[in-house]
């Protein structure tokens, strides 16, 4: 071992035939650098940010009526005030569970991609984004565990990736963005209703604040990915991807109607009740309101045709 190199690094250096790494240091794009600054300024301790009370929803609902999946059914009409409060607690826990499972998939996918060439210049911010998503998952799981008997299970199942990587990457980032935008609409509906339980509103507000930055990143990144794919894929391929994403939005929102929730709230015929809920005007109009912004963006990107966006 050389006395100049006590750790013996020289002996582990690559052979001389390996070209030296001469790439310049990566510079974060200005928008991402700005998001990183904002993230630093908003940094918080997730273990202290919420004062968890003994119970929630004793005197207030945990969701506004219009966010409750069965609001337009006879089963909801038949509930008294206490029954509605109890149902709203489990519906809220299910909403947090759906978000948690969505963020779990996003974090796993991001961790796999973070230092790939396509995202390497954003990597510093993406590490912070993963940190924030993990904090949200912690808050959601705390709520579910403390007040609703646990996180509702994820029934998703990983199917093998299908298609070229540039397409699967685009779909991955698009799905994350669509989740963020749809649930931002729901978060804001909760925060904007002062009659809702204050702890619940606090959690939704934290999510809104962080996701505003994630949505800003997600939109810019998706624009880049679509622009790149459009150089090789035809308009028909982009519309096929858009049709899949449109279906994704519907399916994710339908997960807010969960038979387990109805069973926990003591309601009968839980599976039939879900079908009734999904066919109801209340759910359809909520889904339309939660997706209108994203549909407009997908249309602008050429992923949805104008007639599909209507």
């Amino acid at each position, binding site marked *: 071992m050389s006395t100049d190199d006590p750790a013996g690094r020289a002996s582990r250096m690559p052979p001389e035939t390996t070209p030296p790494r001469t790439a310049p240091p990566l510079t974060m794009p200005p928008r991402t650098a700005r998001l990183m600054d904002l993230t630093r300024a908003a940094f918080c301790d997730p273990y202290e940010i919420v004062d968890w009370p003994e119970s929630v929803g004793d005197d207030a609902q945990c969701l506004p009526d219009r966010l409750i999946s069965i609001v337009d059914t006879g089963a909801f009409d038949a509930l008294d005030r206490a029954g509605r409060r109890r149902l709203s607690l489990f519906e809220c826990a299910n909403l947090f569970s759906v978000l948690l499972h969505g963020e779990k998939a996003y974090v796993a996918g991001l961790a796999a991609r973070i230092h790939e060439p396509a995202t390497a210049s954003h990597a510093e911010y993406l590490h912070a984004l993963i940190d924030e998503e993990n904090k949200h998952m912690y808050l959601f799981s705390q709520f579910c565990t403390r007040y609703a008997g646990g996180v509702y*299970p994820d*029934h998703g*199942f990983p*199917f093998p990736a299908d298609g070229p990587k540039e397409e699967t990457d685009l779909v991955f980032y698009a799905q994350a963005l669509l989740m963020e935008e749809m649930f931002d609409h729901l978060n804001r509906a909760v925060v904007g209703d002062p009659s809702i339980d204050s702890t619940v509103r606090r959690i939704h507000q934290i999510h809104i604040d962080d996701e505003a930055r994630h949505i800003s990143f997600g939109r810019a990144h998706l624009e880049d990915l679509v622009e790149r794919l459009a150089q090789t894929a035809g308009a028909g391929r982009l519309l096929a991807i858009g049709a*899949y994403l449109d279906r*994704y939005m519907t399916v994710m929102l339908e*997960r807010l109607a969960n*038979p387990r929730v109805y069973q926990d709230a003591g309601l009968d015929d839980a599976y039939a009740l879900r079908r009734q809920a999904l066919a109801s005007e209340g759910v359809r109009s909520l889904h339309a309101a939660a997706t209108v912004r994203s549909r407009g963006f997908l249309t602008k990107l050429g992923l949805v045709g104008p007639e599909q966006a209507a």
Partner: protein
Amino acid sequence: MTDRSPETETEADAKTAIEGWLLAHTSHPIERIAHDQDIVTGRILDSLRFVDLILLIEELSGRPVDRAGLDMNGLGLDDFRTIDAIWNRFFKTP
């Protein structure tokens, strides 16, 4: 040729219900699905509709299918690959 015992009414009803649900939710222009047909590779079932299939299995079988349970029992996509496989995994065993 494999010997197969005749289907009971319950088995036939469950398989027909699953087939009907798949036909109603697939984008493929098909009118029948053979009960030994691969619905995963053929993309008759995709990942987006998988959760709804789980809910249908729960409703028809009267038993919850928790993701935790799936993992503990070592289930994989093959357990959902055909209507016959779904019956064997989720309905046949008491």
